[in-house]
């Protein structure tokens, strides 16, 4: 395992950059309350729209709030959403996908029909509606985006479970008298953990963008809590005068999404490159 990991990285030295960036963002987001940062929600009307300086590394926004501090606190929101939402989708989606591939008859029909109905909807509109129903808050945005990602996870789980169900080891387990639950969770599930986890990385970047979009539209994380999408939206009003108020969070968002995509892509290539391993 360790040797495999080493060869994975020696072939892809460029991964140091995205991994480093993600680690930096995560570390800053977690330690934010203990860092010597200006208050991210404190407005300073004496110094609005100032350019980057020593006192304010990234300058200040329209209300004189420190952009560097806001970007770091905004990372906390992105972190919560991008971990929480895929987790909801992963657990509920995998469960539904497993049931829909194992059971037959009306249970499968109902599950598949529900998933199709959810997919027949622009996902952003779906998340938008759910957030409005639940009310805007970080938890509810996470929940709405999590529910939004269920059909995709269910499909992937089902597409990986179906070929496994016909294999000898399932037949062997059944012959040995294993229960349905045992077969599903001890025989099938471990064999599809890797593809599902790889997909989590892809979905994480989608979730960060989705949260940004919702906040940009003004229905995501409510102010004064800083979030990257919200910061970009607020800065838009003064784009001519202080482009950095929008551009800095935009660049941070871009780098984060790009890093997650690069890591996810490398993992996927690894998976297809070496087929035949146990996972």
């Amino acid at each position: 395992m360790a040797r495999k990991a080493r060869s994975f990285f020696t072939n892809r030295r460029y991964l140091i950059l995205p991994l480093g960036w993600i680690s930096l963002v995560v570390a800053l987001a977690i330690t934010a309350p203990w860092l010597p940062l200006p208050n991210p929600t404190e407005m300073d009307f004496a110094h609005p729209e100032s350019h980057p300086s020593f006192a304010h590394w990234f300058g200040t926004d329209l209300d004189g709030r420190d952009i560097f501090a806001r970007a770091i606190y905004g990372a906390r929101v992105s972190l919560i959403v991008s971990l929480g939402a895929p987790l909801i989708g992963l657990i509920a989606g995998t469960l539904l996908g497993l049931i829909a591939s194992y059971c037959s008859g009306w249970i499968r029909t109902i599950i598949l029909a529900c998933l199709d109905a959810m997919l027949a909807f622009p996902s952003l509109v779906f998340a938008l509606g759910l957030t409005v129903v639940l009310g805007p808050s970080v938890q509810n945005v996470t929940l709405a985006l999590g529910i939004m990602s269920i059909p995709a996870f269910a499909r992937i789980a089902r597409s990986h479970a179906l070929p496994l169900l016909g294999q000898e080891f399932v037949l062997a387990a059944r012959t040995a008298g294993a229960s349905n639950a045992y077969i599903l969770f001890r025989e099938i599930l471990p064999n599809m953990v890797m593809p599902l986890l790889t997909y989590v990385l892809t979905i994480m970047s989608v979730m960060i963008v989705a949260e940004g979009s919702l906040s940009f539209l003004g229905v995501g994380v409510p102010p004064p809590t800083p979030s990257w999408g919200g910061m970009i939206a607020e800065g838009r009003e003064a784009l001519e005068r202080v482009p950095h108020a929008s551009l800095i969070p935009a660049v941070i968002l871009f780098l984060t999404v790009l890093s997650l995509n690069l890591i996810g892509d490398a993992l996927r290539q690894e998976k297809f490159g070496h087929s035949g391993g146990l996972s």
Partner: protein
Amino acid sequence: MVLAGLSLAIFLMLELLPGNLVDVLLGENARPEDIKLLETQLGIDKPLVERYLHWLGQAVSGDLGRSPLSGEAVVDAIAHRLPVSLQLMVYAQLLALLIAIPLGMIAGYREGSRLDGTITGAAFGVLAVPHFVLGLLLILVFAIWLGWLPATGYVPWSEGVWNSIRSLTLPAVTLALVEAPVYMRLLRSDIADTLREPFIAVARAKGLPEWYILLRHALRPSSFSLITVMGINIGHLIGGAVIIETLFALPGVGRLLIEAITQRDYVMLQGVVLFIGVAFVFVNLLVDVAYAVLDPRVMRHGT
């Protein structure tokens, strides 16, 4: 079947919303008699099933009700906004294809070359830029710094075709740039696969020029995934590009949706959401037909 489930889901979702319409219209200090009267007028006092069937019956005959806030018929509101969304959709798809088809074909034809690597790498980078960031950058560069194009607003066809196209250029380019990398990647891998097929070898053996083989033999069977994804995108865009329309202040269906949400206009919301769902299902039906036109083999296998 899908549509029936969809309509029920939309109806229930919005019925269960917190925040009663009567409260919005009358304010919190309304007298109980007034509330009663308005509920009878709007038909809210009837049981749920009856209201659903009534709403569905009217929806099928093309009446989605009237917005209690603006008094405008929902169907009219959608019909009024639809041309903007459609124009934007067609413009953006054309631009996206214009970018994606040549690049995808070159990259697929020269698979593994340095040129392929550059194109694929650029597409990967663009993919990581969200809609609203890209739109913002384009506004900053082309509207604010260079002043070539208007930043926001929409000019209808009636006030000059050229100005209308100009007003939609930045939003359309934004959408096109977001979608082109996806199309490009699909076309690239499909072209590369198709070029390994025996009939391509036959065409080469006949001495046909490479460009002719690419355009006449390879493009058509390689465009299936492209058309599938394009169908999904078109289906979504008929319902309005919510973010783009908000960013560029375009009065399309997506704007209508956001306005209905922020004003808690549930009758409008129900109508618009139902329209978006139906449009999506309908476009996917058309995509299935398009397969058969592109490749008659589908028809024979299917039936």
